[in-house]
């Protein structure tokens, strides 16, 4: 079933606190360090974007709620470095570091602009789409990974078992549910699906809508 990160629609959080647009986007020096360390460690190629997202989702609910944003990043990074064998638990606890055969993959300062500029597109050659814009579809009854219990998925719980209308087709993209678990990219057609908000929440204003970006295997046709 769902994990703590899947909070869309949850009650009890109170008001949003807007900030002045002039406020720096890196509020504390260590925030920038944590962000940059995460990006540079990703360049070692020992995990992908979906694995790193799932590492943050796998924090205990207590840690997830207690940690600030970049503390989640740091904790996810530390857990990944150990689980992917990049560092040992002893090294993390302060033991003398051993040399690593991954050092040839180290991201050098002069490589950074090109790496950030190219990013990591997720579009792939894949199977032809089963659906087209205008089609009515229904999402999986539960927001769960079909391969791994408790695994990563990008279907939010609030949109599980919901009927909507497909409005955009994006071609085939890497399937996070597989890619987060070392099961390969298994590209599938990706769509944007529009839901009438009052079918998700009865109190929603009539005419309001919510969209989600959903992979083909999350969807079934509505006759």
């Amino acid at each position, binding site marked *: 079933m769902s994990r703590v*990160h*899947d*909070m*869309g*629609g949850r009650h*009890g*959080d109170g008001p*949003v606190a*807007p*900030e002045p647009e002039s406020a720096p986007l*890196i*509020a504390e020096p260590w925030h*920038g*360090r*944590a*962000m*940059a*360390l995460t990006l540079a460690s990703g360049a070692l190629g020992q995990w992908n974007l979906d694995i790193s997202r799932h590492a943050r989702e*796998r*924090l205990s609910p207590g840690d997830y709620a207690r940690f*600030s944003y970049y*503390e989640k990043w*740091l*904790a996810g*990074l530390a*857990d990944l470095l*150990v*689980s992917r064998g990049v*560092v040992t*638990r002893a*090294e993390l606890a302060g033991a003398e570091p051993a*040399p*690593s055969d991954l*050092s040839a993959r*180290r*991201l*050098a*300062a002069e490589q950074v*602009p090109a790496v950030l500029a*190219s*990013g990591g*597109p*997720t579009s792939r050659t894949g199977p032809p789409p089963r659906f087209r814009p205008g089609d009515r579809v229904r999402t999986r009854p539960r927001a769960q990974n079909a391969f*791994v*219990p*408790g*695994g990563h998925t*990008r279907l*939010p719980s609030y949109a599980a078992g919901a009927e909507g209308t497909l409005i955009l087709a994006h071609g085939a*993209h890497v399937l996070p549910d597989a890619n987060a*678990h070392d099961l390969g990219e298994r590209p599938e057609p990706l769509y944007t699906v529009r839901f009438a*908000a009052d079918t*998700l*929440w009865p*109190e929603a*204003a009539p*005419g309001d809508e*919510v*969209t989600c*970006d959903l992979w083909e295997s999350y969807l079934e046709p509505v006759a």
Partner: protein
Amino acid sequence: MAHDDPDHPHSLLPPEPELRVRALETLLTRKGLIDPGALDVIIETYSEKVGPRNGARVVARAWSDPSFRATLLEDATAACAALGYHGRQGEHLVAVENTARQHNLVVCTLCSCYPWPLLGLPPSWYKSDAYRARAVRDPRGVLAEFGVTLAEGQSVRVWDSTAEIRYLVIPMRPEGTEGWSEDALADLVGRDAMVGAGLARGPA
């Protein structure tokens, strides 16, 4: 990877976040896995070079140039790349336009997906539990907290960024700006307006 590690390795690091990040950076540097100079370049990029001014230029161009607007709505990735905006967390872009009938608001309920090449790093409120939880269920309440009241007859469409598609909201062009230069128009377009949590500023 299927199983949770009940003994999370991150708990081996010091409790203070600043010490934690320093301990990790030191360890990875000593192992030859991190170039601290690369971290400096990444931080400099997202604190000085990439920010909401990029998105504002895209919006101002769309307001000024109907053929660019059409391209942007058809293929935002290509249209933004033509202005030099592309890359990490903006590999696949979609632009959505506010109208008198519909207001658009962007959220990522599952994490914090955001169009970095156009807007830079997300602000704290975008990453907050309150925004992630409430934007989809109570968008009008959230907009009121930003001081935004919708016009009568305007519906809200909330875009939950659940894949690698990143959304840019094109706000409505303020009245009284006919004939303005793109630079002057860009000055009216703030970050919050391009997430849909604000509106473009009117002429002073």
